[in-house]
């Protein structure tokens, strides 16, 4: 059967101020096919799709549907041309049921007959193999179910061309498989499906053809069967890229951070962390896998002192027995206080108290390396604020998920953001920007941050560069424990590999790295061990070298017995 053109874009151009998001892009979509639109962040994929969906209006060019030129001025126009877009962020009313959300905004009178609507929704669901209860409220739904509602919403309105913006970002491997099955069934039904993604394995798995965009321009459209991941990457980035993460075997991994039976209730009184226990070893990357919102954020925040925990222990180990004291992580005052408690001895095992000695003499003695710790340092981090943890001399770095809302201050420049952790240095009330500025310049150089200068507000930088600034700062703090939550989310391939390499280098330096990720392929390649959590409880800790994606996927949705009792 001859393939029939559903949608054509001819010479589409769209600019935002001086930035050209799409430059004369041509794109064809046929009936009954799945077209993947592939490209790095900021290449104009979403802008292009938004023009089909009526959110933006092109500066130049034509859109043809079934060979006829159309004007799409608003999402309503798009619906009239049977185009529906499923956005990354769902637009649903939490208090309504699935069916109510589906009919919301349609003009048909029958929307008030909920029974009929329920039946219709159930029928669409059955036709394409969705699992959905039309009468279920949105707030009771998992992310995957909400996505299903969004898809049914556009199908209900009769869409023949469906655009999905990064639909897999929030799903487990099992849910992704199910979504792909549904997409294939819709394709057989004659629908055209455009899926925006930057995950190559998904492109290979589900699409018929791939359109590649780079810097706003259409590079090529190829048949999926005739291409390879390596070729696609090259077209996407414009050069060959090494897609391997070089994972080294951990060298004498020692416990660094031990969490025992941690329980946390959030502000609404919900039990968000349930008896979590694990050990993060120095010189090792511990991955944390789980469906978004399973307690990853809360776990990292409670370790770093941002959330007051209900019960449990958080202990930091510093193996210092018989090793020399240094001023690297401690101030003179802290060293003196510890000495007074009898924590140090000299080379002949005599107590060192520094009693009656000048600071200068103490400094000299310590710097000679002749003052040694009597015991390993064991510090309790529970119920300590971030500042108190810092004052204990525990270097705990944390790259939070919300980069500009938590890790950095968007309106401040790179120098001022470098100071966030260190601005308190110096006795007087004035800031000293000299060192932070040097540090900012170093990070720009070392991590190849593309920015007009150190005084550019970080909000103006692209996602990858923002993240480089944040990770760079946290690493410059010479951490013993480095926690990173979704550090490559939204980053292009190059920046992602820069971040993986940075984490690996920290691991090789003996840092205990905790990596919360969503891409299971990356977790498997990067981490040494993977802890899987679901609903705030640990469902398993597995060896990343021997486990499989399927095993992790099962653990991600496993409910343990304790949780049942709780409920």
């Amino acid at each position, binding site marked *: 059967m001859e393939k029939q053109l559903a949608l054509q874009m*001819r*010479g589409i*151009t769209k*600019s*935002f*101020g*001086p*930035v*050209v998001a799409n*430059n*004369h892009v041509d794109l064809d979509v046929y009936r009954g096919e799945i077209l993947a639109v592939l490209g790095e962040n900021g290449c104009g994929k979403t802008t292009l799709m938004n023009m089909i969906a009526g959110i933006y*209006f*092109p*500066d*130049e*060019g*034509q859109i043809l549907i079934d060979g006829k030129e159309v*004007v799409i*001025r608003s999402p309503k126009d798009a619906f009239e041309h049977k185009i529906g877009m499923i956005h990354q962020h769902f637009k649903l009313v939490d208090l309504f049921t699935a069916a109510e959300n589906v009919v919301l905004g349609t003009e048909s009178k029958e929307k008030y007959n909920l029974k009929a609507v329920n039946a219709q929704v159930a029928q669409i669901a059955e036709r394409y193999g969705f699992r959905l209860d039309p009468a279920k409220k949105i707030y009771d739904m998992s992310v995957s179910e909400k996505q299903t509602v969004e898809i049914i919403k556009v199908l209900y309105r009769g869409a023949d061309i469906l655009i999905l913006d990064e639909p897999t970002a929030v799903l487990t491997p099992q849910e992704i498989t199910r979504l792909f099955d549904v997409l294939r069934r819709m394709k057989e039904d004659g629908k055209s499906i455009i899926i925006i993604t930057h995950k190559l394995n998904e492109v290979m798995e589900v699409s018929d053809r791939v359109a590649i965009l780079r810097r706003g321009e259409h590079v090529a459209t190829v048949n999926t069967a005739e291409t390879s991941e390596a070729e696609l990457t090259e077209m996407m980035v414009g050069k060959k890229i090494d897609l391997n993460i070089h994972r080294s075997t951990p060298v004498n991994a020692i416990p660094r951070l031990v969490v025992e039976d941690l329980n946390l209730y959030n502000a609404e009184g919900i039990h968000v962390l349930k008896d979590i226990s694990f050990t993060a070893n120095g010189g090792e990357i511990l991955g944390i896998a789980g469906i978004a919102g399973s307690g990853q954020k809360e776990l990292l925040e409670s370790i*770093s*002192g*941002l959330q007051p925990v209900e019960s449990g222990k958080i202990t930091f180990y510093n193996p210092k027995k018989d090793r020399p004291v240094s001023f690297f992580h401690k101030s003179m005052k802290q060293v003196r206080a510890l000495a007074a408690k009898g924590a140090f001895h000299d080379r002949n095992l005599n107590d060192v108290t520094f009693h009656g000695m000048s600071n200068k003499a103490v400094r000299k003695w310590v710097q000679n390396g002749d003052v040694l710790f009597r015991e390993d340092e064991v510090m309790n981090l529970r119920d300590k*604020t*971030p*500042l*108190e*943890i*810092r004052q204990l001399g525990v270097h705990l770095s*944390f790259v*939070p998920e*919300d980069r*500009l*809302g*938590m*890790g*950095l*201050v*968007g*309106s*401040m420049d790179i120098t*001022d953001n470098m*100071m*966030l*952790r260190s*601005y*308190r240095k110096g006795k007087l*009330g*004035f*800031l000293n920007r000299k060192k932070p500025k040097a540090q900012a310049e170093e990070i720009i150089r070392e991590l190849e941050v593309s920015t007009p200068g150190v005084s550019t507000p970080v909000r*103006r930088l692209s996602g990858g560069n923002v993240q480089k600034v944040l990770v760079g700062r946290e690493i410059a703090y010479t951490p013993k424990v480095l926690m990173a939550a979704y550090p490559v989310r939204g980053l292009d391939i190059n920046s992602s590999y820069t971040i993986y390499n940075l984490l690996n280098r920290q691991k090789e330096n003996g840092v205990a790295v905790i990596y919360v990720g969503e891409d299971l392929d990356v977790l498997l390649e990067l981490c040494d061990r993977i802890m899987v959590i679901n609903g705030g409880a640990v469902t398993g800790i597995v060896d990343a070298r021997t486990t499989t994606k399927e095993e992790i996927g099962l653990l991600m949705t496993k409910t343990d017995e304790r949780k049942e009792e709780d409920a």
Partner: protein
Amino acid sequence: MSTVKKNEVREPLIHLSKRTSVNPVRAWAIRIAAIVLGLIVCGLVAFLLIEKLNAHPEKIGDFYTAFIKGSFSTSRKFWKFLKNIAILLCVSLALTPAFRMRFWNIGGEGQTLVGVLGAIAVDFYLGGKIPEWLLLILMFIAALLTGAVWGVIPALFRAKWGTNETLFTLMMNYVATFLVSYFLVIWVPSGSSSLGKLKYGKLPSIGNDYLLIILIVVALAVALYIYLNYTKHGYEINVVGESVRTAQYVGINEKKVIIRTMILSGALCGLAGYLIAAGLDQTVTTESAGGQGFTGIMVAWLGKFNPLAMILTAALIQLLNQGAAQISQDFDVSGAFPNVIVGIILFFIIGSEFFINYEIHFRGHHGLAEAGKEAVK
């Protein structure tokens, strides 16, 4: 490509886009254009409303020169102009640390008023009984203290119970007004509602009556600029203002910062009250703050919370006020007319911010898009 044709006919007439970067020269050009446009509209409105102008259109020149005359025609007017700027600027400066922290302190009026009240209370009870220099110092302390207390109460409630500071500070203004009425009843024994000018507690005159006040406020502007941009406290204020979560993340106790900053903000309002009490009035009425607590908010916003830029915005507002007052005098119109003039011009100034941040595209004009393409190439 020959098949490409522009969507000239069907494109929406107007669409807006946010500018990605703001060119400062262009921004100032837009602002100045807005003021000019505002003045023209003022002229038109005046032409319609003022009979004297209606009958003698040639007098329109006098209408505009009145703006200059209002502040510069005599040396007395000029000094008054500077003094008014100073007091208004002092209140705006006081509000700035709070605003930088996104703590919407609408209570500058009340904080200034209790500052006046505090200073005058000391003056009333101790004036003449202790040396003048000591009296002035005690008045100073009293003004700062009362202002600080008035400022910190909403901050404490916000830190402890998360109350809305905008409403709270606003209500405190009314409390301050009634507090003044209460003390006036106590202090003024018989029927008369005004306290009258007190004999003691007047700031010394150095060359000119107002010079000391002006110098104090200029020094304050510079000091505050340094405080906000070059000290650890200023840095903390900026972090808390931008994101409380970031502040917590780096171990800044945001409650402490809010309370500390509101003590400062209130105390500086108290200082403005002191300048009014000891430098100008030597008395207190419920109108002592004269609405400057509210005008100050506008000055601070227009100056983008930059203490040095606020000197200019305060001057602009004062120029408008005095010019408009001069107009109502010269053209013999009601006292409400100056408000109309000031309102029109502010409308244009505030409206210009929209044109600074957004770009308007008309149908068929792709000049900018083309230019953008060139730039990218």
